[in-house]
């Protein structure tokens, strides 16, 4: 989880990623930032993110992102 928070901090510095649950709804992460995030997640956690995963429910908070990563690792 800490690695994920570091990645998020690198993409959008200064945001409260630990508590924020509206990263997509409040436009904190736009489509450009999402792609940067996906690229970093794939490299760091050795998972493959498909377009089907790119939904607000997976990207609205660090927690939901972490859950997606864990699920993809299991697959």
């Amino acid at each position: 989880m800490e690695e994920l928070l570091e990645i998020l901090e690198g993409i959008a510095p200064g945001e409260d990623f630990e508590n924020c649950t509206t990263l997509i709804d409040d436009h904190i992460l736009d489509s450009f930032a999402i792609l940067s995030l996906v690229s970093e997640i794939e490299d760091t956690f050795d998972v493959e993110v498909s377009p089907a995963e790119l939904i607000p429910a997976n990207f609205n908070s660090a927690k939901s992102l972490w859950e997606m990563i864990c699920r993809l690792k299991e697959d």
Partner: protein
Amino acid sequence: MAYHLLTYSLIFLPVVIALYQLCPARFRFVVLLAADYTFFCMISGKLLVWLLLATLVTYGTGRWLAAIPVRHSDLHGKALTRKKRGVLALGIVLILGTLVTLKYLRVFGVTLAAPIGISYYSLQAISYMTDVYRGTQESCKNPVKVALYLSFFPQIMEGPISRFSETADALYGGNSIQFENLVFGYQRIIWGLFKKMVIADRLAPLVVKVFSSYNNFDGAAILVGVLAYTMQLYMEFSGCMDIIMGSGEIFGVPLPENFRQPFFAKNAGDFWRRWHITLGAWLKDYVFYPISLAKPVKNLAKKIKKKAGFSVSKFVAPTIALFFVWLSNGIWHGPHMNYIFYGMYYFVLIVIENLTEEPCRKLVERFKLDTECIGFRIFQFLKLFVIVNIGEMFFRADTVATGFRMLRRIVTDFHITALAETNFGVDVPDLILASVSILLVFVVDVIHEKGISIRRKVAECKLPVRWSFWYAVILLVVVFGAYGSGYTIVDMIYAAY
């Protein structure tokens, strides 16, 4: 039949509302579907067959995809995934093939009659099939639900491009019409009619005159024509969208918003998140992300990351995908070079914005600029306004070359004094009325941008105030609407795409 004609809001819609409400709840979907197909036939007649075929393909593909089991991590699982991909590809090819045949073959001299709304319902069909393939949408067992989703009469002509999960249940559910929804829906319809009939249609003759004979006009007059077109398009498209959203609201169908005060955007990218929102969202989900995450694009980005680092490689996938997004956006509007040019214009602008975002942020931090101050906001607004107007000029011009000639004339042959002698084909009182009305819409947009709902605020007022307010708006449309003798009915611009 069209949304801005009184036959729609005063005859067709009330009749459908009455029949819908009188019908037992479990059969209300039949009334809606009958209304959908009647509305469609009133415009496109026998071409209804194309909509029915699209419905059949969409439903069939969904069911076929659901019939293929999901298995992972073995050879059989991979074969099933390939089969699923093949089924989806077949569905998309059939839908897109029909669209291309009916809409784009005229490039090769073959002109076929395209049904109304084909550009909109085709995208809805593709989104449903793709979502079922991805597993983010359950395959619908009920063909009537799919038929309702693709043909809902308020949105068939101009969108918004909705997703199955947004509207299908409400369309099929047969919920009773609530008094509040009826009132709010009609209020929004009246506001839409105001934008379309008082502003857009009043500006239409001026726009036609300037764009059809720009050679006879001074650069200053051409600029007036370009500004008028941008306003006409905004008032017309967002006004029709108000009528559409209001109609949906009456039936309790939550159609997605297509506009969010676009001229208050910070840049071109932000503008497209506020203008024709559902087309942008569709292109993002079904073109931008799939291309960005395609293996060849990812591999290229990885190679560049090794050589030049993440700061460079992070632009690779989005830029490649953006090219196809804006090419698709241009082509979607029709088989004309100026639409493709329009798409490429925004592609270049948005890539520049992406590349310069970080240096600009550093510059703002270094010089401690206040980006929220009024001066900076006005600068942002003017910059965006220029960008949008140039784009719309090329969008409306007959050819790309005409667009460039108009632009050159505005720059090199600009005499403000010439405006006094220019005959725009529109009376001065008409121009003054249009300008005042645009100002009124601007004020409403400012209020909406602050998150205030005017309809709700008015609803909280006492009865005399409420009725006076809405009577005033109705009177504005009745008295100042551009209809009757001396005016020609102006077709809905986006219904032609």
